[in-house]
């Protein structure tokens, strides 16, 4: 290519000053319209509301917040919830109790697959109704098989239980060796001393690596702004538990941390009509979960061979 291919570079003789000016005008006209198109392409951002506030953006990591800073954060969350739902909640930061390690035991002889636990959990933990987020997924399994590829998630018979099947609810197993904690690039999820794997919703960047890593499909993402009907909001909240989440962050079962750290049973357990769910402190030899793990001959941890060491035990009445 010869030099005449390009408009002259600085220092080379210009063919004619007039052409230079014209080409300059020409180029700047195109540039200007290009910039206008660029600005216009960002028009949808005008609809961006409540994405983040300065305080939310600057908020420190949960483990680095001083008690005073945490109090301010809790107040801010209460204000945000009141602004959105018209109900003033109480948001607390409950700490783990000493000498407590939570364990869940689920009796597969008793579960009838009614899914009441799924909906009690949704109600207690302020999960989005549309799009739907549910921490618990009840699997219908064929009699005699634990192959999860044979499971049915959308069973809808007239009555449950159905002959020839058993039902297995799956939620976060609060593993002792959690793969989700290992892979999170920003430490937004970690395991507390009482065994609950928690998420700092205000720290999560929404990369969804933890969702890919979880072998139990227990972690769920807010693909858009969650929607909770005002009349169904549960105003008793905790920071690491059921405070309403925002678009773009992960959430999952946290053993009803706002209830269990106050000594109560989780919502799924209380609603189960068959009494299939058992929960308590494994470090207390008198708890029902200690009794179960001591006396039942057969209990199963899902996908045990992956080395996750779940704190969720499925047992049978033998």
């Amino acid at each position, binding site marked *: 290519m010869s030099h005449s291919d390009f408009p002259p570079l600085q220092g080379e003789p210009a063919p004619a000053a007039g052409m230079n000016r014209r080409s300059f005008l020409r180029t700047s006209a195109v540039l200007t319209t290009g910039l206008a198109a660029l600005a216009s392409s*960002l028009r949808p951002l005008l609809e961006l509301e409540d994405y*983040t506030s300065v305080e939310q953006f600057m908020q420190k990591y949960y483990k680095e917040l001083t008690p005073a800073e945490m109090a301010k954060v809790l107040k801010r969350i209460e204000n945000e919830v009141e602004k959105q739902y018209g109900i003033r909640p109480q948001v607390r930061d409950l700490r783990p109790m000493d000498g407590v390690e939570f364990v869940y035991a689920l009796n597969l002889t008793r579960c009838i697959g009614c899914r009441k636990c799924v909906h009690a959990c949704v109600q207690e933990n302020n999960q989005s109704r549309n799009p739907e987020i549910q921490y618990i997924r009840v699997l219908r399994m064929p009699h005699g098989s634990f192959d999860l590829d044979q499971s049915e998630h959308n069973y809808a018979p007239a009555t449950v239980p159905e002959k020839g099947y058993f039902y297995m609810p799956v939620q976060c197993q609060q593993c002792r060796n959690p793969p989700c904690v290992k892979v999170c690039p920003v430490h937004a999820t970690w395991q507390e001393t009482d065994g609950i794997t928690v998420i700092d919703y205000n720290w999560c960047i929404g990369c969804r690596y933890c969702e*890919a890593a*979880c072998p139990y*499909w227990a972690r769920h*993402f*807010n693909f*858009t702004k969650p929607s909770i009907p005002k009349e169904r909001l549960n105003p008793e909240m905790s920071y690491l538990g059921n405070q309403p989440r925002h678009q*773009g*962050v992960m959430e999952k079962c946290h053993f009803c941390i706002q209830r269990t750290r106050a000594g109560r049973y989780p919502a799924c357990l209380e609603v189960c009509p068959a009494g299939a769910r058992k929960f308590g402190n494994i470090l207390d030899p008198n708890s029902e979960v200690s009794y179960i793990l001591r006396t039942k001959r057969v209990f199963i941890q899902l996908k045990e061979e992956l080395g996750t060491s779940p704190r969720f035990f499925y047992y049978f009445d033998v």
Partner: protein
Amino acid sequence: MRRATREYLVFLWRCGRIAFVGDWRYYAWMGVLTVICLLGLNAYAKQLVHGLIATGMSDEVSWGVYIANFTFLVGVAAAAVMMVIPVYIYDNEELHDLVIFGELLAVAAILMCLAFVTVDLGRPDRFWHLIPGLGQLNFPASMLSWDVIVLNGYLLLNVHICGYLLYCRYRNVKPSKWFYIPFVFVAIVWAVSIHTVTAFLYVGLGGRPFWNSSIVGPRFLASAFTAGPAIIILALQVIRRLTNYRITDKALLTLRSIVQVSMLINVFLLVNEVFKEFYSGNLHVASSKYLYLGLHGYHALVPWIWTAIVFNLVAMFLLVLPLSRSLKWLNLTCVLCIVGIWIEKGMGLVIPGFIPTPLGQMVEYRPSLNETLVCLGIWAFGLLCYTVFLRMSVPILQGRLSKANEGPGRPA
């Protein structure tokens, strides 16, 4: 010091200015790419407002084309540095003046990778949580933290190498060996590491048996070193056609032999993978069944993977035949390689890992219009960057854009 800075700024200004100057074909190309970029930007703005529901992703398939493209492009970025090996280790003359085009491709590819990861985040405003010191980078446990470090490091490495060499050429000054040779050798190792780390993102997940296999890492590298040099073969011919930069056919054929060997290894590894998945008949192969044969009535990926396999096999045969020494056939082969490997790494790796879900549910994935526009926008952005890099570097390398013709007095 001030003078050195001013001179550098003049250099940057002239480089920037020349990016806006060209003939009608240049304007047409850049114009179309800009339009596609803007369409992508607009689509991303919508995604920012509404959230990732604007894509086809869901809790069941939580990574899609963004991460698929990211994975493919990390491979391209790694392989672009492939040319460095014959030149710096084996003193290949033909490729000596062309290495920089590979490194510039690596820079463009890394920029695309960073863009794809950013658009995939649910909360991109919280990116600062990843910065060590400021945030809480989970190094060394999380492979994503490794990826953040190695990708940015690789970007800086290549920007330094290219920037330094081009600036020296601009000033007609011999580059000092210590300022670039050690970095080049580091880049060779680093290139392998960026793709291995990306592979380990997948391999490390015990809950996904489709990915939790030791063949993923070697497969990544083999496919990257097939697709990367294939892209460079095509890019060099474009450069040769549009400028009169000296690019010999021998250089292209050297690259061809790299593609040839890599593709042979890639196909061999594919055979290994298929045998392992299907021979023993154990139950962990649901994802492979879904991909190659369809499962429980779901078979959206089957035509794609078989197309990719056919492309790869045809490309492999063409590569071993002397037929592909002719540029016409070589170009066809390169296209087959690139498309086949893009399908393999995207749809053939990322998506099947999610189907069925760890609880056995079958939910398929299709990218939405918005998602597709964002992808096209980022690809256009990458091509835009690479074109600009070439637009700046070719005149510098040919001596037509140099300090000598800066002109008196004020800068342009």
